[in-house]
């Protein structure tokens, strides 16, 4: 099955747009349970993106990868995060270092920055002109999602919201990977996906242990070790 160019353009725009918008909403909102839903939505959007590129380039391998991405990022990772919240973690990020307005202004600046720094990448992938193809044109969105993931990671203090930031960062990297190169080789792609899952699992276990060792506010008091 081959998709028409118009359909490919629209699907790529839709899925990358969903990724960016959900990342922006994550910066704005503080409740953790909706955040996990948004992470699942990002997983679905990423899977759609992979499947679209796979069908456009006629690569059956990418459709398999899309299925794996869907299972891992839209189902398993949100499930692990949900378990973490259910296990007694706080369900709101009440210690963020940025208020929502400052967060949204930072997001706007980061997105502009993303368009500036992606120039060499889009240029190398086809000049950035109208004939560059939808994939190359969407690379700045991936960079923006990476930068927003960073922002979430450094401005949040609760353990699970830091994990959410990390997952957003990883989704951004995966977006860039699929847009620039139709993904990495299957073996490497499988490795990276499973390592993300393992990191999320390890962080969930560590945050549980920290709660039992230091009480529910474990991460705000992460100042035992310093010089």
């Amino acid at each position, binding site marked *: 099955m081959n998709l028409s160019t118009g359909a490919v353009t629209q699907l790529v725009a839709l899925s990358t747009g969903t990724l960016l918008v959900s990342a922006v909403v994550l910066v704005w909102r503080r409740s953790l349970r909706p955040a996990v839903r948004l992470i699942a939505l990002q997983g679905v959007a990423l899977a759609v993106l992979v499947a679209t590129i796979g069908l456009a380039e006629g690569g059956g391998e990418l459709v398999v990868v899309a299925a794996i991405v869907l299972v891992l990022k839209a189902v398993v990772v949100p499930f692990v995060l949900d378990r973490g919240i259910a296990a007694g973690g706080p369900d709101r990020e009440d210690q963020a270092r940025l208020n929502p307005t400052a967060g949204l202004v930072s997001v706007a600046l980061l997105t502009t920055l993303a368009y500036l*720094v992606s120039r*060499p*990448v889009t*240029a*190398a*992938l086809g000049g950035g002109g109208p004939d560059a193809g939808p994939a190359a044109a969407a690379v700045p969105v991936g960079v923006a999602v*990476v930068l927003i993931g*960073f922002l979430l*990671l450094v401005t949040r203090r609760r*353990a699970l919201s*830091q994990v959410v930031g*990390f997952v957003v*960062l*990883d989704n951004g*990297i995966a977006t*860039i*990977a699929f847009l*620039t*190169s*139709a993904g*990495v*080789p299957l*073996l*490497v792609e499988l*490795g*990276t996906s499973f*390592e993300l899952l*393992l*990191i999320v699992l*390890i*962080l969930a276990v*560590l*945050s549980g*242990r*920290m709660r039992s*060792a*230091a009480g529910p506010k*474990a*991460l705000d008091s*992460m100042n*035992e*070790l310093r*010089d």
Partner: protein
Amino acid sequence: MDVLLVLTPVVGLLLGVLTGATGRGVRLAPVVTSLVVLGVGVVLVVHVAVEGHAAVVGAGGGLLRADALSAFMLALVGAVGLTATWGGLGPRRPGPADASARRYAGLVCVFLAAMSLAVLADNLGVLWIAVEATTLATAFLVGHHGTRRSLEAAWKYVVLGSVGVAIALLGTVLLYAAARTAGQATLSWTVLTSGQLPLDPGLVKVAAGLAVLGFATKAGLAPMHSWLPDAHSQAPAPVSGLMSGVLLAVAFSAILRVQAVADVVLGPSFVRGLLLTAGLASLLVAAALILRQRDFKRLLAYSSIEHLGLLAVGAAIGGRLAVAAVLLHALGHGLAKASAFVMSGRILAAEGTTTIADVHGLLARRPQLAVPYVTAIAALLGFPPFALFFSEVAIVLAGWQAGLGVAMGGVLVLLLVVFAGLARATAGMVLGPPDGPVGELPPAARGPMAPVWLALAATAAAGLLAVPLGGVLTAAARAVGA
């Protein structure tokens, strides 16, 4: 020969899983894994010494490959691993191993397997997976004691380490995109460094910058070093020895691989600038914080940042002399640092504290702990005849010849500051009148002395063995284009 390449990481992984699952051989499994890695490393090094620098063994359908650098690094992983795991053998406990001991032994084996895979990878994607796997394997090892401080250290380590490695993944992905637009979709290091692909310089610049930044986080280079003192001071002593002595060097060898790709496309000046900045910044951070350090395990961690900074400066200088000196330095630092951490663990067990100011007169009270500790610190300070003396002199000389005189002046000043800080802190611990507990060591502070003395003897001998070792080091430097 090519079977050995596949076998080394697989044996480590299998032993780790078996030990973790059954609880049999929890004392032996990490030592055996180190021995296997060291054995294969030595076989490969001999192969290089006989066949010359062009000796390359490939395996695993092009995913694995051992050139002179891989052979040297594999032997280093094995040697430091043996020092840390054998030296870290505590008193034998009666009864079956508990869950914590099983997890510890299993994860150490997997950790060693991941490092072997990282140095044997030809595919940059496999290299990335292996480096990330080292983070996964060590996460629970850092938090092994389960105290609030060790869990905090583990959290910071996993978050920062994974973010760093995620940046490296972005770099790797962009390298793949560059190779794909150049006509061959590959992550093979051999192909990327061959110069046959017309890689886009703009894309390679972004990719190499991100990959160097990412792996530099794992290598503990400033300004991405903030996890290192926490993780290395909170982990159990043998794990600290492994992480400080060889994991940093493995991450650094990944930087050398990326540098080789970037140098082919962009010329040496781009990565040289990055590494020189990171190296000098690391030396500066280490010098500033060693001077006012109150905890001796953190002191050793900052000394690792110093030595990795020196490695980065050496790699920035480039050329056969500097890169060979960098590898000799990694060898000397790995063995001496693993010994120092093993001894610091025993000092902690005997004295019950890691505060420098609370330990006095160790030479008079507990010479069996103090003498090896001081010897290891002397090696780290760069006293002759230890290898670090020769490698530091060679790096500074090579830098001078390369026209980096001002930077080398800075390096020398910072090394002097580090020397003063480390020497003063250690003198305060070991000298002075014997006021404190004397007599029989508690069981947890006892352990085999042979690995520590063997490692220190090897550090002393390595600087003098120009004939077999020098040839291998030069071959390894040539393998990354120096």
